[in-house]
C-alpha cells in the first residue's frame, strides 16, 4: 500500500445524509481523518454506527455537503471507480455480512480477489497469517453458520485488515467478543496506522477503548445533532 499523503484521507464536509435512506439525523456531519489518525466514534445505536460507516463509504446519498475519500468525492465517481475505491476500505460491521453460500475463507479473500491482481497464494498466506494473528488456528473453511460467533468476529477482523486498506471502518469487535482479541486487534490497528491508514473505530461505550486511549487521535459522539466532538479527559 502506498501512503496517501495528499491531504485528508477522509473528509466529511457538512455532509447531510438522506434521512430516508439511512435513518441518520439529517444534520451536517463534518470530520477529517488524516493518514495515521484513529478516530473513536461513540454510537449507542448499532444501526446508526453501521449507517455512519456507510456514509463514510459513500453508500448513502447526501442531501447536502460532500464526503471525500482520498481526495475523491464519492458522488462524482462512476460505478467502476466507486467500487475500486471501496476496495481500499476495510470494514468490520455488525450488519450480517457473511454470505451463507460462500465458505468463510473465500469470503475473506473475495474482496482482494475482486479488486486486485494479487496471486491467490499470496492472499491465502496473508489471510491465514491474519487469521492466526486474530486467534484462529488457521483460515476457516466452513460456511459461516458453522462457525461460532467469536470465530466469525475474528474472521471479520482478518477480512478487514487483509490487503492493507487505506481506511478502516471498524464497528467495535471487542465488545461482546473474546477478550484475548483485544491485544491482536489493537496491535493490528497500530500497525495499520503506522503504515498510513486511517481508522474510524465505532464503539458503543467508553470502556472498550480506554486501554488504547493514548493512541486515539480524537473522540466523537454520534448524537441526534450530528457528530459531536468529545473532550478527552
Amino acid at each position: 500500500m502506498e501512503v496517501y499523503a495528499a491531504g485528508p484521507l477522509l473528509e466529511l464536509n457538512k455532509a447531510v445524509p438522506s434521512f430516508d435512506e439511512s435513518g441518520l439525523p439529517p444534520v451536517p456531519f463534518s470530520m477529517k481523518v488524516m493518514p495515521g489518525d484513529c478516530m473513536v466514534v461513540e454510537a449507542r445505536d448499532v444501526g446508526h454506527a453501521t449507517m455512519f460507516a456507510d456514509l463514510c463509504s459513500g453508500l448513502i446519498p447526501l442531501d447536502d455537503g460532500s464526503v471525500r475519500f482520498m481526495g475523491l468525492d464519492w458522488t462524482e465517481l462512476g460505478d467502476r471507480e466507486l467500487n475500486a475505491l471501496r476496495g481500499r476500505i476495510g470494514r468490520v460491521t455488525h450488519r450480517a455480512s457473511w454470505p451463507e453460500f460462500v465458505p468463510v475463507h473465500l469470503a475473506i479473500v473475495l474482496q482482494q480477489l475482486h479488486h486486485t491482481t494479487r496471486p491467490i497464494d499470496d492472499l491465502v498466506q496473508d489471510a491465514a497469517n491474519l487469521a492466526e494473528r486474530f486467534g484462529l488456528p488457521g483460515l476457516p473453511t466452513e460456511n459461516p453458520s458453522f462457525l461460532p460467533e467469536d470465530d466469525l468476529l475474528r474472521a471479520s477482523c482478518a477480512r478487514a485488515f487483509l490487503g492493507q486498506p487505506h481506511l478502516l471502518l471498524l464497528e467495535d469487535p471487542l465488545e461482546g467478543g473474546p477478550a484475548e482479541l483485544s491485544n491482536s486487534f489493537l496491535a493490528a490497528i497500530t500497525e495499520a496506522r503506522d503504515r498510513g491508514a486511517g481508522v474510524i473505530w465505532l464503539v458503543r461505550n467508553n470502556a472498550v477503548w480506554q486501554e488504547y486511549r493514548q493512541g486515539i487521535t480524537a473522540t466523537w459522539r454520534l448524537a441526534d445533532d450530528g457528530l459531536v466532538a468529545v473532550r478527552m479527559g
Partner: protein
Amino acid sequence: MSSEEIIDPTVQHDASVRRVLLHMVLPFVLIIMTVGAIAWVGINSYRTTSEGVSVLTRELMEATQQYIGQEVGDYIAPSAAGNLIAGGMIEHAPPLVSDKVFYSYGSVMLQKIPQLQSFYLADDQGNFTLITRSPDKGVQDRERLVVGADGKKSFHHSLFNEAGQKLREFETPAGEYDPRTRPWYKNTEKKDSIQWTQPYLFPSDKQFVMTSSLRFKRDDGHEMVFATNISLNELSAFLDKIKIGKTGSAMIVDANGRVIAGRNLMQHAEAAGWDPNKMVLDPKTYPIFALGYDHYRVRGFGPKHVEWDGKTYIAMASALPRYSQGWILLIVAPENDFGSFAHQSSRQSLQFAGIVTVFSLTLGALYIRQLRRTEAGNRRLAVQQSQLAQESGALQQVAIAPNLFDPSAEPLAITEQLAQVTGARRASLWRFLHDGAAMVCDDTYDRTQNTHSGGFEMGREELGKFFDAIEEGTPFSVSNAATDERTTRFERLVMREVGTHALAVYPVHGPHGALGMLALEEPVMLPHLLYFVELMASIAGTRFAAQSAVEAQQTTSVENTALAPVQAFGAPKSDNLLMHAEEMAAVTGASIYPSVAVLVVSFADPVVEGSKETATLIALINQLATQVQTVAQEEQLFAVEVAGHRMICMAGCTTEPDPTALFRLANAALKMRETFMGALAAADLEPVFTMGMDYGPAFGGAVGQSPTVFNLWGQTVSLAELMAESAIDPGTIQVTERVYANLRDRYLFRSRGAFFVPHLGLGRAYTLAARR
C-alpha cells in the same frame, strides 16, 4: 494506484467518455455524414439523370416518330399528290392529248420516283391506259386496253426507253378485263378525294402494292379515274434501315392491326401465305410490337413502357399524317438503348462515391490513429514529466537528508528513494568488508512493507562468483536471479525470503575498485533512470570511502588495546526442563520420534502493579510449576520444558511408538487445567492460560556440547503451539485432528471447525472437554 489494483479510481471516467467521443464517435459521425452526403448527391443525381433520360428518350422517340412520319408522308406524297396533279392536268387537257399528258407524267414519275410502280387512267366508258416499268431495266411499258375487230379485248404494249424512243409493240390478251370493276376504280365512286385500296401483293415480282386513286370529271363530262400504284417494299426497306436507338425498330400497321410495312416484311408475307389479310401482328413473331399495339388500343397514342422477358421497352404508337388512312406507326426500342449512358453515369457516380468513401474512411482512420498517437505521446510526456518530478523530488529528499555523507548515519534516504524511483520491491546498499572478504548490508528498504533492515553479512566463500561480478565494476541485471550462476547464492540467501526474482546490481566504485553495490530487486529499470542510480552509487561510494577511513582508525586503536582474556562459560547449573524422565539420560544424539504427544501451555502476561503483587505472583507461578511437576511425574511424561510464558510437556519421545503416551499427556493436560483453574481462582485471577496439543512425529534429542541439552522440535511442536495460541477461550485445551482421532473414544471433544494453514493443509480443530 497500487500496481495490484485492477481499476484506478483516480482516473475519471468522463475523461474516457470524452476520449471515446473524440476518438471514435466524432470521426465515425463525420464519415457517416460524408457518406450520407455523397449518397444523397448520388441519388439526386441519379434521379435527375433518370428524369432527364426519360424526357430525352421521349423527345428522341417523338423526333424519330416525326422523322418517320415525315418520311412515310414523303414516301406516299408522290402517289397522293401526283394523283391530284395528274388528275388536274388530264381533267383540263383536250381528250386527244390526255393520253400524251398521262404518259408524259407517268414516264417522268416512274423515272424519278422509285417507289411508284405504275399509273392507271380509266374512264367511265371502259377505256384504260397504264404505264409501268418493264422487267427490263430502263424500259417503260405503256399499255392500252383495246377492243379488236372481233370484239376481243387485248392490251397493246408499247415499250419505250428512257429517251422516249419506242422500242417495240406487242399485244397481250386482256380477257374480260374492265377497269370499272377494279377496286381502285370502284372505291372512288361518288368521292372526289384520294382513295386507297388495301395492300395487295404482286406474287410475280413480290411487291406489296397499294393503289391510290382519284376520280375527276373531264371537260367533256366523262368521269375518269387516275390511279397510282405505290410499292410498300421500299417503305419496309426504309423502316428496316432506320436506326432507333441501338436495336429499336419501327412498323406501320393499319387500323385493323395488319402489317403495312416493317422489318422482315417478306418473310412475314410468306408465312401468311402472301395474303395481306393474314399479315396481322402475331405476338409470337412480334411480341413487343404486339404488346405496344395492345397498349395503344387500350390507352391510345403516346409512349408506353412495356416489359418483355424482364426487359423494359418503350413502345410508342402515333398516327401517320394525311393520306395514310388510319395507319399507325409503332416504334419499339429497349429503354437501355437510351438510358445506358445514365446507367453508366450512375455506375461512375457509385464508383466515385465508393472512392470518396474509402478516402473518407482512410482519413478517419488516420485521424483516429493520429489522435491516439498524440494522446499516447501526451501520456508518455506526462509520465516522463512525472518521472522527472519524481526523480527531482527523490534527489531533493536525498540532498536534504542530514549527514548524508556521514558513515555513522544510516543511509535510509538513499535506499528509500532508490526503491521509489525505480519501483523496486527492495533496494539495498552493500559494502565490502575486510578487503573484499565479506560484504555487509548497510541498509535494505522494502517498499511494500515500508521497512528498513540491515546488518546482514555475506562471505566471499559463499558468493564468490557474485563478488567477482561486482568487482568487475559493470552493472548487470538478471530477470531470474535463481537461474543465473552469478546470483544463485544471493537469491537463496537474500531474495527468496521475500520471493523476488529479478535483480539489478550496480557496483559502487571507489578510487581503488569496487567498494560495494546497490542491489535492486524487481526494479522497473528504464534507461533514463540509470543516471539517478549512478548518482546514488556515487553518493554511496563517498560514504563507503569515509567508512573505510573510520574503520582503519578504529582497527589501529583496537590493535593497540590489550586483548582481555576470554572467560570460558561455565556449565549451566540447570537446564530449562522442569521435569524429565530418567530415560532422558540415555539420550545421546538427535533422532526422529515417530509418535510424540506434545502439550503446549501458554500463559498470558499478567499485569503487575506493586511489589506485593509481584511476590504473590511469583509464589503462584512457583506453586503452578510444582503442581506441573507432580502431574508430570504421575503421568510419567518424558519432559516438561519451560520457556518464558510457555511450557512444553512431551510424552512418547522414544524411537519405538508409545501407544499410551497420548493418553497420559491428555490426562496430564486435564489435570493441569483443573489445577491451574483452581490455583488461579484461589488467587482471584482470571484463567490466563490456553493449552494446545498435537500428536505425531517430531525431531528430538540431545544437542550442543557443554552443556548438552534436550530439545524437541518439528511440525508437531509447532502445531501444538498454534493450538495453544489460538484456543477459542482462556482455560481451554485445543487439539488437532490427529489427537481427536486417537482420543475420541475416551474423551469428550467439541469441534471448532475446519481451518486451512498454508504449508500444512486443511485440518479440523477441537476443544478437549473431559474424559468420558
